[in-house]
């Protein structure tokens, strides 16, 4: 039994790392643009397919294609911002959040349908030569490809924090997220900040998608599930720190895998959702940190 629990703790932590990684992008777009993108999971799905096809068609290893996935989805993010979210960000905050929720909901439906059309509804996994490799500590299996997801999440969180706190661009980004009017008055090009932040958010979702298609699997319908995970993580962790988000992701992963041991596999997600609702009901307003005051 303790063996089983130890194994689930490890699997939960590894999966939770990916939850954290997905949530990083969502936190970025919500924190900076005040845009709630419920198509975030669909961007993850697209990233996953990109990595999958790069591997199948061109034999590109998913770690080699990571920069490619990042760049392509960054570009797609720019496109989405220019065609859609630019119009959403023209309204004041309250309307903006509501409208972004609705617009991205429509976008999610469209992206999912297009994915079925072009990629078929089949489940896909990247199976490399090292896919089944794992190392074992005290007879607990740690699959390499899943460990990679956690490592990428941690690296991404540190890079993001470094950019946010150590660069001029990061400073402008934080100023915009605190109060865009004041930022605009100090000469910051708010629209450019929005565009880049949204594009990075999309690219982060895609990176997470790469890791998902390597360690788990992708199909057109996975978007909503991942969006929900990312939302839960962001709501629990707030927008304060990127490291905090990865930690919250890991916590969610742990809760899920432990509940599947104790309550039963088919209720792992339900347990997490119910826990989330309980926590939310204790703090019904102040989750997105500073955003609530804006």
């Amino acid at each position, binding site marked *: 039994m303790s063996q089983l629990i130890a194994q689930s703790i490890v699997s939960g932590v590894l999966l939770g790392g990916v939850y954290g990684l997905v949530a990083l992008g969502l936190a970025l777009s919500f924190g900076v643009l005040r845009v709630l993108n419920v198509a975030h999971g669909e961007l993850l799905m697209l990233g996953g397919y990109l990595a999958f096809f790069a591997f199948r068609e061109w034999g590109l290893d998913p770690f080699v294609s990571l920069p490619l996935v990042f760049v392509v989805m960054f570009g797609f993010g720019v496109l989405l911002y220019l065609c859609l979210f630019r119009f959403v960000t023209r309204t004041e905050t309250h309307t903006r959040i509501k409208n972004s929720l609705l617009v991205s909901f429509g*976008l999610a439906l469209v992206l999912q349908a297009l994915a079925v059309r072009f990629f078929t509804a089949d489940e896909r996994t990247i199976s490399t030569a090292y896919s089944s490799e794992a190392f074992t500590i005290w007879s607990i299996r740690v699959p390499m490809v899943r460990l990679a997801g956690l490592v990428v999440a941690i690296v991404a969180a540190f890079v993001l924090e470094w950019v946010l706190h150590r660069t001029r661009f990061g400073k402008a980004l934080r100023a915009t997220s605190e109060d865009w009017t004041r930022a605009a008055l100090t000469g910051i090009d708010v629209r450019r900040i929005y565009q880049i932040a949204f594009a990075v958010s999309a690219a982060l979702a895609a990176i997470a998608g790469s890791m998902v298609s390597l360690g788990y699997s992708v199909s057109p319908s996975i978007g909503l599930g991942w969006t929900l995970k990312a939302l839960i993580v962001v709501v629990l962790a707030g927008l304060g720190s990127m490291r905090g988000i990865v930690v919250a992701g890991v916590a969610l992963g742990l809760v899920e895998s432990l509940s599947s041991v104790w309550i039963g596999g088919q209720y792992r997600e339900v347990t997490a959702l119910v826990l989330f609702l309980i926590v939310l009901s204790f703090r019904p307003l102040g989750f997105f940190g500073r955003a609530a005051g804006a």
Partner: protein
Amino acid sequence: MRERAAWMGLLLLGAMVAVGLSVGNQHFLTLTIQTMILATLATSWNILGGFAGQISLGHSAFFGLGALITRELWLGGQAFPLAVMTAVIVTALAAFVVGIPMLRFRDIYFAIGTLALGVAVYITAGNLWPGISSLPAEVLRSYDFTGPYFFALGALVAAVCVSVWLERSRLGLGMMTVREDEEAAKATGVDVFSHKLAAFVISAAVATLAGSAFAYFSVSYYPNFAFSVIWTFEAVLVVFIGGIGTLAGPLLGSIFFILGRDLMPTDVDEFQVVFFGLLFIVVVLLFPGGLSQAAGRLLGRAGERSTATDRPTAARGRS
């Protein structure tokens, strides 16, 4: 204006009854029943989302619960009307109990919270009722579309009546003030929380009727299908395309959606979703009044000018 609308409504209702009695075309009847079920569901969502301004993404839970209870009791030997009544009462009670914590969440927290709830209920329903639910042979032998047709029509009429009543009542006005501005509503003496809760419970009760109609109409389905998020999504889609916060919006949107889906090429299923998804985005961004406003403008230009009854939208929000 109102009287004319009432007469038109009655005329339409008469036509619908005549159609149900005389037309034998199965395909046409199926489409009509589907439209009425969706329109009932959309109208119920509109009570909460359009009148009271609370965007719920967990509405399928009530539709599913209505379908489940109705079906289980009915196939278990209960008289159908009694099954429906039980379903409505149980669902309304469930909404009351769930609504008290959920409605403390504001705006997007409410949307996220209800989405989480909807998904949790969906998974649980799938776990508890894994088997397919089929009409037994003796029911199937006498099955035709007349019963479901008239029940769905009755459900829709009930939904519309509730909406009309709300539009004219103190309760409905209170809901709309909550939608417009919670702080100002409180300062005006409106008990905001009670109005949200009332909208939530009424909306759930009406969604139950749609679920009952679905349970009556469907020959066989997996019980958790009625809990699927798809129902929420279609309701939201249809309400916005038709015109949120209006009486006609959910009806127009449902007709447009079901008919449009039927007329579109069937070899590429995904095309329909792409089309409605894009249309939805366009409506939210550019035409927040939806089809009903467009229709109102056309009618207004053709006939006499209506006196500012085109109700604007909740999506526009405050500024």
